[in-house]
């Protein structure tokens, strides 16, 4: 393992404001003007959804690449972001529909394939979709509305300013109405308004935003019609799985395909980059063929790597904490977090059809654009000859930012000379993820005689697997000289972003340790946070959960209440978790949450994300972990990656506070404050501290 240089980050209050408060809602209006308002790029951005009916474009109103209004009044928004359960297809359509004054019942979405250059980019991650396109999507709607109004005014011979709009209709001064569908063709003759002349609705006139709309994808999902990558079938397609290395860096020494080739339905077996591919007439035959393969593997160079060896390596990187102020009461603590898998409900998969001069991919992915580049490179075709169709994602959580499964499918298709559906079985998926890294945090802090926090030193050492070192650190409390050291050791375990990314580590343990400082100061953990809080919006959500949870009211023996908060991605969150600890059993009885996401674009979506963040955090807090032994991942499937089930989901109560008119992100901020609130609740119930996640009563100290 190679030592990497420790990086020091200043996390004083100023640092926090700089690092957390400054999260970007920036965008370039110029790029909106050229992209969104340019006509003629519809063919490039319209969906390639198989079976989509061909529209007569001359009769539809297509003001730009994001929007189409047909003569029957159907409003179709082209969405460039990937839908993985965060509701982005609905949220972005809501933004367009509000300023268009559309009839929400007539709004539909189509998914753009990879390769466009849309506002906000095409990658989906970092809770950025709404944040980075909020104004532009609304301007798409507003500018189209202006054109529809102008078309109606022209037809009636009245001033545009004398017309109103409502629910997909223009209403003239004489009471006459024309529907957007009726205006579709004439509106195409209206000049595109200058970006500067496009005004957005004031918030108090919103009819759609902030009202809470059900997801547009729901009807397809509940009838089984929704198409995920694994549901795609193209003519002539065969099915493939790959026999993958049993440990990190293992190589194929030799293989005997004879038994595999006689499995009914198996068509081809060949070695490829990731292992040995088995191609068959159906999925089951490919799986059975893989089972029948006899492969001799050469063990990789990491057979001695285990969770224990990595833990020792993390500890070896620790340095002395800086001295605490003299005379202060010093508190020390450590926290260990394991690797965690994304384990999306739909495992990795892709359909690829590589031909001599072109390639087409169907897959759920968060980065269709860079995925297209990787595929193009692999099959040696120009990127413009590769088309990536973005399907619904059966979960993302950061996993599908990586697109190696698309590249593998393309590689196999090229070699097999037919379209291929590549499946990563659950076991493949569990053992070959880009995991949230394992980490060890060491804290030293201090409080003075008056109970003020006067020292904060946090070292977090992570097992880095090579895919990005995410390190936005900060605490929201006013502690002079607060500092953080972030270090890493290289391991063969591939790591990558997992929902909330570094905040799953830094903020989770920060909020555990601030609780310990409060205890050392002899103060209530909520009051202590409140007294030292450096952020008004965060303070408000914190106060809200305290109030709503009945913070401070007595609880029966064995019960406890914990509190924690988080700011990031332009959003502010706080949680109170209530637990009951009986013997070795921890039961979460209630979770009270408050969130300030700025303007609440879709409150139903916000609630869904908050429940999801809670479920994730309780899973990782109490049950699920990835471990390493003998140079390989130990866990196989859902039977040993022990995710939260329905019976364990607590009562969840949410309050949404709109603290500004700019929307914050939602996917990531739902997570970080749940786990520390849980750990703090367990302390309140038992008097013992959590030092290791997932939490076990026997390991409390």
């Amino acid at each position, binding site marked *: 393992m190679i030592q990497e240089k420790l990086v020091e980050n200043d996390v004083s209050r100023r640092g926090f404001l700089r690092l957390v408060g400054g999260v970007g809602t920036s965008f370039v209006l110029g790029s909106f003007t050229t992209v969104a308002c340019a006509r003629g790029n519809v063919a490039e951005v319209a969906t390639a959804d198989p079976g989509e009916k061909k529209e007569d474009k001359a009769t539809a109103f297509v003001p730009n690449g994001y929007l189409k209004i047909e003569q029957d009044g159907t409003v179709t928004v082209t969405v460039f972001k990937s*839908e*993985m*359960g965060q*509701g982005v297809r609905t949220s972005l359509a809501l933004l367009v529909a509000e300023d268009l004054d559309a009839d929400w019942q007539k709004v539909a979405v189509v998914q753009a394939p990879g390769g466009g250059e849309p506002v906000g980019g095409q990658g989906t991650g970092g809770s950025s979709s709404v944040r980075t396109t909020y104004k532009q999507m609304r301007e798409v709607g507003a500018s189209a509305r202006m054109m529809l109004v102008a078309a109606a005014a022209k037809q009636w011979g009245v001033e545009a300013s004398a017309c109103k709009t409502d629910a997909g209709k223009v209403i003239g001064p004489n009471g006459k109405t024309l529907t957007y569908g009726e205006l579709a063709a004439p509106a195409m003759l209206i000049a595109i308004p200058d970006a500067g002349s496009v005004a957005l609705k004031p918030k108090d006139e919103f009819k759609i935003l902030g009202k809470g709309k*059900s*997801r547009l*994808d*729901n*009807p397809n*999902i*509940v*009838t*089984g*019609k*929704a*198409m*995920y990558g*694994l*549901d795609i*079938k193209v003519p002539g397609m065969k*099915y493939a799985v790959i026999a993958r290395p049993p440990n990190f860096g293992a190589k194929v020494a030799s293989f005997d395909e004879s038994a595999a080739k006689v499995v*009914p*339905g198996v068509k081809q077996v060949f070695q490829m980059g990731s292992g040995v591919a088995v191609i068959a007439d*159906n*999925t*089951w*035959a490919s*799986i*059975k063929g893989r089972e029948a393969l006899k492969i001799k593997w050469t063990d990789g160079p990491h057979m001695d790597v285990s969770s224990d060896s990595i833990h020792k390596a993390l500890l070896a990187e620790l340095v002395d904490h800086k001295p605490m102020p003299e005379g202060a009461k010093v508190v020390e603590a450590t926290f260990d977090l394991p690797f965690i898998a994304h*384990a*999306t*409900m*739909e*495992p990795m998969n892709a359909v690829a059809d590589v031909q001599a001069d072109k390639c087409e991919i169907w897959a759920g992915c968060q980065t269709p654009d860079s995925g297209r580049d990787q595929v193009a490179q692999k099959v040696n075709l120009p990127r413009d000859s590769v088309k990536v169709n973005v399907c*619904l994602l*059966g*979960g*993302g*959580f950061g996993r599908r930012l990586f697109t190696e499964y698309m590249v593998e499918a393309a590689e196999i298709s090229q070699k097999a000379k037919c379209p291929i559906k590549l*499946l990563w*079985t*659950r076991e493949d998926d569990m053992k070959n993820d880009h995991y949230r890294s394992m980490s060890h945090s060491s804290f030293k802090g201090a409080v003075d005689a008056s109970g003020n926090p006067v020292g904060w030193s946090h070292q977090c050492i992570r097992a880095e697997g090579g895919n990005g070192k995410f390190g936005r650190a900060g605490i929201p409390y006013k502690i002079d000289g607060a500092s953080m050291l972030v270090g890493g050791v290289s391991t063969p375990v591939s790591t990558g972003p997992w929902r909330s990314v570094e905040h799953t580590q830094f903020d989770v343990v920060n909020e555990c340790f601030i609780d310990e400082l409060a205890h050392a100061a002899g103060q209530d953990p909520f009051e202590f946070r409140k007294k030292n809080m450096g952020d008004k919006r965060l303070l408000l959500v914190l106060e809200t959960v305290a109030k709503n949870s009945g913070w401070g009211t007595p609880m029966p023996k064995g019960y406890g209440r914990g509190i924690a908060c988080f700011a990031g991605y332009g959003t502010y969150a706080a949680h109170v978790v209530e637990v009951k600890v009986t013997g070795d059993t921890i039961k979460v009885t209630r979770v009270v949450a408050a969130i300030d996401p700025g303007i609440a674009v879709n409150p*139903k979506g916000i609630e*869904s994300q908050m*429940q*999801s*963040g*809670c*479920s*994730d955090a309780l899973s990782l807090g109490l049950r699920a972990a990835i471990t390493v032994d003998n140079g390989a991942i130990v866990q196989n*499937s*859902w*039977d040993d990656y022990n*995710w*939260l*089930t*329905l*019976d364990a*989901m607590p009562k*969840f109560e949410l309050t949404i506070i709109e603290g500004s008119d700019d929307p914050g992100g939602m996917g990531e901020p739902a997570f970080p404050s749940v786990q520390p609130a849980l750990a703090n609740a367990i302390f309140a119930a038992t008097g013992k501290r959590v030092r290791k996640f997932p939490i076990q009563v026997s390991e409390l100290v």
Partner: protein
Amino acid sequence: MALYHLHVNGKDHAVEAVADMPLLWALRDLLDLTGTKYGCGIGACGACTVLINGKAQRSCQVEVGSVGKQKVTTIEGLSADGNHPLQKAWIEHDVPACGYCQTGQIMSAAALLAEKSNPTDKDIDDAYVAHICRCGTYDRIREAVKACAKGAKA
């Protein structure tokens, strides 16, 4: 390989398969009924749940050779037009997030309500053992099931 006559969603389908092919893959790959999802293949997640003679079964654990004349119902056969009360409740309560597991969740709910028209919270817990939603939609699943209970307010 043998020819099996499966009775799926009220229709007879002939499929040519090996006897041990899980019903899951016969439905998905041979009959193009892709509403039934693969999640683990070991009966640990519930994404592939279908009804067999009205009982919730993990289709990844049922060999196609063992199905015989039993009646298989998948999400595509739950209603003709997507208007089954559970499907309506799932939309109304905005249950899906990524949605991948939801067809299995709905089929489990259908089996539960067929057996117990007024399920208690404990009944719902028990019906959803080893049933994973990776997006944590559990609160809304519970709400939607209760909304379809016999005693629920319309």
